[in-house]
């Protein structure tokens, strides 16, 4: 048996590639441990991911119940996708009193075991990305489950701002480059010309 390790990067052509690889006889496709990766530079703020997420999990188009959230700053022209990605520390895991929240040691992704959950809402408050929600209609915690390994948000993202793959090689600072350079430039011009730019 030949094994091929592939990245599950999502995006346009990834799925086709996987299908082709699986068709080869005597051949096994092994996915590398993956995490949701966000590139702030690429997000256009279209919120297709929110729509796709709610459609897949709730069966209707309801962004307020999506497992991720795009925050748009119209005055700066910036869009920040907040996903349940690999946090440096995982406050939701630390705070959970019944150990319902679990963290994968390699990918650093977190998972919720709904059977153990007692709806104490601690994780809702602790989440730094604000993507763990309490559904007050059905009384349950809404938390990204990464669609069991094929996240809908990464599949539909038109610009590749959200991808699903092994720990990315680019440093976090690169992914935030747009915002950093942007804020610096505004500050510089404001100093030089004192234009009152916001």
């Amino acid at each position, binding site marked *: 048996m030949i094994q091929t390790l592939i990245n599950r990067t999502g995006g346009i052509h990834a799925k086709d590639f996987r299908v082709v690889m699986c068709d080869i006889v005597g051949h096994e496709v092994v996915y590398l441990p993956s995490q949701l990766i966000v590139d702030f530079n690429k997000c256009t*703020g*279209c919120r297709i991911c929110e729509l796709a997420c709610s459609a897949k999990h709730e069966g209707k*188009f309801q962004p*307020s119940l999506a497992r991720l959230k795009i*925050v748009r700053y119209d005055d700066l*022209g910036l869009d920040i996708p907040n996903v349940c990605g690999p946090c440096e520390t995982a406050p939701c895991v630390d705070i959970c009193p019944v150990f319902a929240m679990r963290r994968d040691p390699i990918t650093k992704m977190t998972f919720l075991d709904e059977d153990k959950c007692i709806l104490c809402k601690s994780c809702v408050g602790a989440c730094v990305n604000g993507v763990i929600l309490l559904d007050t209609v059905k009384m349950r915690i809404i938390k990204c489950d990464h669609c069991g390994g094929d996240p809908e948000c990464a599949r539909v993202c038109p*610009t590749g701002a959200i991808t699903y793959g092994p720990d990315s090689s680019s440093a976090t600072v690169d992914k935030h480059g747009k915002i950093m350079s942007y804020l610096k430039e505004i500050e510089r*011009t*404001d100093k030089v010309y004192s234009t009152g730019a916001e």
Partner: protein
Amino acid sequence: MAGGYTGKILRANLTDEKFKIEPLPKEWIKPYIGGDGFGAKLLFTELAAGTDPLGEQNKLIIGTGPITGTMWPMSGRTVLISKAPLTGIWGESHVGGFLGAELKYAGYDMLVIEGKSEKPVYIDIHDSDLALRDAKSKWGLTTDKVTTAIKKDKHDPDVQIAAIGPAGEKQVRFASVMVNLARAAGRTGMGAVLGSKNVKAVAVRGHGAVEVHDLDGFLEFANAAHMRVRNNPIAQGMSKAGTWGLVAVKQEIGEFPTYNHQTGVFEGWEKLSADYIRPRFTIGDRACFGCSLGCKKVNYVKEGPFAGTLEEGPEYEGLMAFGSLIGIDDYATTLKGNQICNRYGLDIISAGSTIAFAIEAFVKGAINEEDTGGLKLEWGNREQVIKLLEMIGKREGFGAILAEGSKRAAEKLGKGTEKFAIHVKGMEVSGQDGRTHRSIALGHATGARGADHLRSLVVVDQLGYEDVAAKRWGADKLPEIIDPYTEKYKANAVFESENAYCIRDTLIVCWYTVSWPPIFWMDDFTTILPLATGEKHFSKVENLVEIAERQVTLKRLFNAREGITKKDDILPDRFVKDPMPDGPGKGQVVDLEPMLRDYYSLRGWDLETGLPTEETLKRLSLEWTKSHS
């Protein structure tokens, strides 16, 4: 209720300070679909003929369609409908951004604003919590400030806000309503309607859902549609440069309006082209709701007199209105002008066109410094344009005259300035020229809201897509139908395109999915509409065509009630009498009459009066309109 709709109409009565929620009449869905269609039906029924657009009796509708707020590409658009202050006839303006989707998530298909408030208010819709809130502290603020202030008041950055600026408050005839700071419901002066009602803003936040009839089928088709957008080469070009790419194309075909539409070629076009702007100014790409194209560009000026300007846009029309139309070959000026328009809430096309009118009248000696209050108007003066825009926004000095739009300004100034006002039915002509693109001449002349490039612009003949034309209209009409310099068959092209755009405006989806050449057309609408609504009636092209025809004729009847007939379906003398002076279309003029006659007979309107005939009313089941005259 059929899928896709929320089934509720929200009415905000400002006079009584009361809200009312009505069920959406089920019998409207089949003949009108939504969006523009519902708006036309409601406005025609409820507005008496001769209503003052800026009076208490006028109503403003914020409408959505059955697929607004779903996964279908670019379905986040909203329409604002009212009787237009600029033209006194049918007025509508579509806007991108996130407002429409949020309104549906809040649970309403339409918001109807009626009456007039005594003091400044803003309408606050938070799901079923409805309130008119005091906006005294916000009156006089620019649109960006008021949007930020309301978000701060509500402690919620996700509130979607449609706001007017000082121009709307002062009832500038072409005031816009701004959504998400840089998306404008610009044309026909919807901002002035809100201003006349003392409404500073509409704030919407919704947590509900939009459910479609067949989710699996809908998602499959919508996802495939997204892929078609992503893989379309022209759409890919647009996601790089938005509509800026048009500048080079228009220059090449001699249709880039320059010096107040005097000519169609501009010597400084290169500095307004996409290849020049993008590497120098663009710092980010943005998109409206549910759009995989992302044509909005965030731009920043690093140096020069306008250093520090950070703004989205402008589109092609902005490059035209503050660039070539006034003889300015500087992108930074157009960006600054765009920013002022966004903040004060002004329509870019009308503002630029009115300024160009004043400049030409001054340069040709019709008016002098006494009329302008000491201003020496000239072509290509960058600071002057910015100053004039601010004066219009504040209605100061000469700006108060220009704030009335070019038609009324010409009437006020007199002295033969009428011939410099390039408008149809009072609305300024957009960035096209009928002399080098004959079908748009017909579109401008017959558009329900005046000189309009978004209701019937045929791009197939403009850019010469032979295969698309053959498929759509039959190979027997080639080559005339794609020849931009002949009137033959142009009415067929305009008729067919206008019908498709009508369906687009009822869904409501973005114009860019049905343009250069279209990614989606009627066949796609006949697939997605039944999937979304469950209404089998929408699955046949001929049914959709009938709905579109009904809508166009209903808008015509609305205008006819205000006295519009064939005599108003005209073009400015510039396009009909002055031959194009330079460029590839040198010597061309428009011969409107044969095109008009063809168009009227296709629409079933009387050839002499331009009004719908009895048979047409019967065929489109519009006989009920007779009892609303």
